[in-house]
């Protein structure tokens, strides 16, 4: 029985037709927010509370990176029975002038990462249960 591919969180990213992070943009001051803001504009000079959806750049430069050599505590769920270390990337988006974190897919080793390299957004398995394959955005070398 095949599992349902389910977004691990609604409204923050899309899987199809192409992976993209979903931010929001204040209709008044044009400030961009990720994770998406829907209620209050966090620019202190702006009291607006309306936003439009804005997909973020799907490529950026690797600002920094590190690893999780030990399994993080709950609510993190390991995708495999036996935990395998994975990298975490901080990627700088040029147009949006912000840095966004994301896991790096497990197949990418630490040695493949180099600060300043171009990274692209993908959607990959976070973990599975009996019915669902939960997916989340990740960054991998472009």
């Amino acid at each position, binding site marked *: 029985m095949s599992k349902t591919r389910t977004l691990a*969180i609604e409204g923050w990213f899309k899987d199809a037709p192409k992976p993209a992070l979903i931010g929001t943009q204040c209709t008044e001051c*044009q400030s961009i927010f990720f994770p998406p803001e829907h209620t209050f504009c966090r620019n202190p000079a702006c009291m607006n509370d309306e936003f439009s959806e804005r997909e973020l750049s799907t490529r950026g430069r690797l600002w920094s*990176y590190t690893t999780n050599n030990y399994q993080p505590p*709950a609510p993190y769920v390991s995708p495999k029975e036996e935990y395998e270390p994975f990298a975490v990337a901080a990627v700088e988006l040029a147009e*949006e002038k912000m840095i966004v974190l994301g896991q790096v897919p497990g197949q990418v080793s630490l040695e493949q990462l180099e600060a300043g390299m171009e990274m692209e957004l993908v959607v990959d398995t*976070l973990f599975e249960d009996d019915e669902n394959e939960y997916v989340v955005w990740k960054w991998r070398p472009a």
Partner: protein
Amino acid sequence: MATGEVAILGVGMHPWGKWGRNFVEYGVKAARDALADAGVDWRDVGFVADGETIRNGYPGFVSGASIAAALGFNGAHVGSSYGACASGCQAISMARAQILAGVTDVALVVGADTTPKGFFAPTGGNRSDDPDWLRFRLLGATNPVYFGLYARRRMELYGDTEQDFAMVKVKNSQCGAQNPNARYPKAFGLDEVLGSAMVSDPLRLLQICATSDGGAAMVLASMDYARKHATDPVRLRGVSTVTPRYPNTNIEMPDFATDSAFAVPQPDVGYRDSIALRAYEQAGLGPEDMSMAEVYDLSSALELDWVEAIGLCDPGDAARLLRAGDLSLGGRIPVNPSGGLGAFGEAIPAQAIAQVCELVWQIRGEAKGRQVEGASAGVTANMGLFGHGSSVVVTA
């Protein structure tokens, strides 16, 4: 703009360790020691300011009252506050303000915690609208992951090395070995630190601070009261609990992303740099006036970030100072003469208070085995999750 000063009449600490006893016990011990040190009767304290602990149920949320009740309710005004690692500083800020406002002459500041084993995990339950829950679920972003990102960034930008980061731990452990309140009394060698298990590259186990039980307290008083009760008390000259300015373009724990500088340009002074700056301003002093500093070495690499943020040197220069011995005892500007978090581990609501306790002992010349010569002024710095700056300036 210089603010009013208050006197620090007494300080006290319960040693840091791991026993799992009730946090109130540690807080009361620290409070009693501080009161005795100050020569102040608990019944004369008019305000109790306390840093909350959020992992100890209701009594932790109202920790000021919990500790006041244990000392024996005396009718004092009370204020408990939480700002993650900055909680203790918020308590200091509150107590100072009450004294300067004339509500009371004498205030007790206290913070104490007892903590779970291992990584700091978020509060329980399914909390999918809580960013601190989501960062574990969606990213697996533990605290060491953030520290690892900052450390790798220093290596890329400034050429800092694993050896530099290990040297910070070695330096701090030498002081910690002399500090009776430190949890870890061991002086580590470079090889030992570099040989410990890799946790979040490039940071190893011995470069990441543990979580600890502990309690710290101080007695603050108006200068008028102090003049009648003490000779030359250490003076509290500046307290900063600032939030960032939007947009904050540095990635902060436990966020998924920075703010965007798309529409609004980033501020002239970055958040981390602003924290001690605002305390210096109140004191009418600058980093050049400091004899020493106590900063948050959550990881040994982060100490170098703080050395720069509090203005002891230009960005990128901290490792050079470290290698030159400037940041060690006997050096130009010793950092973490207490032994830092490396020797203590972190007891969240107590830590910012403990940083000040150390500066007080140093200025009085009572820091046996780890004395900074001629210590006359010091600054503390740290930061709590979700925008809680923490910095205190004290002088003789």
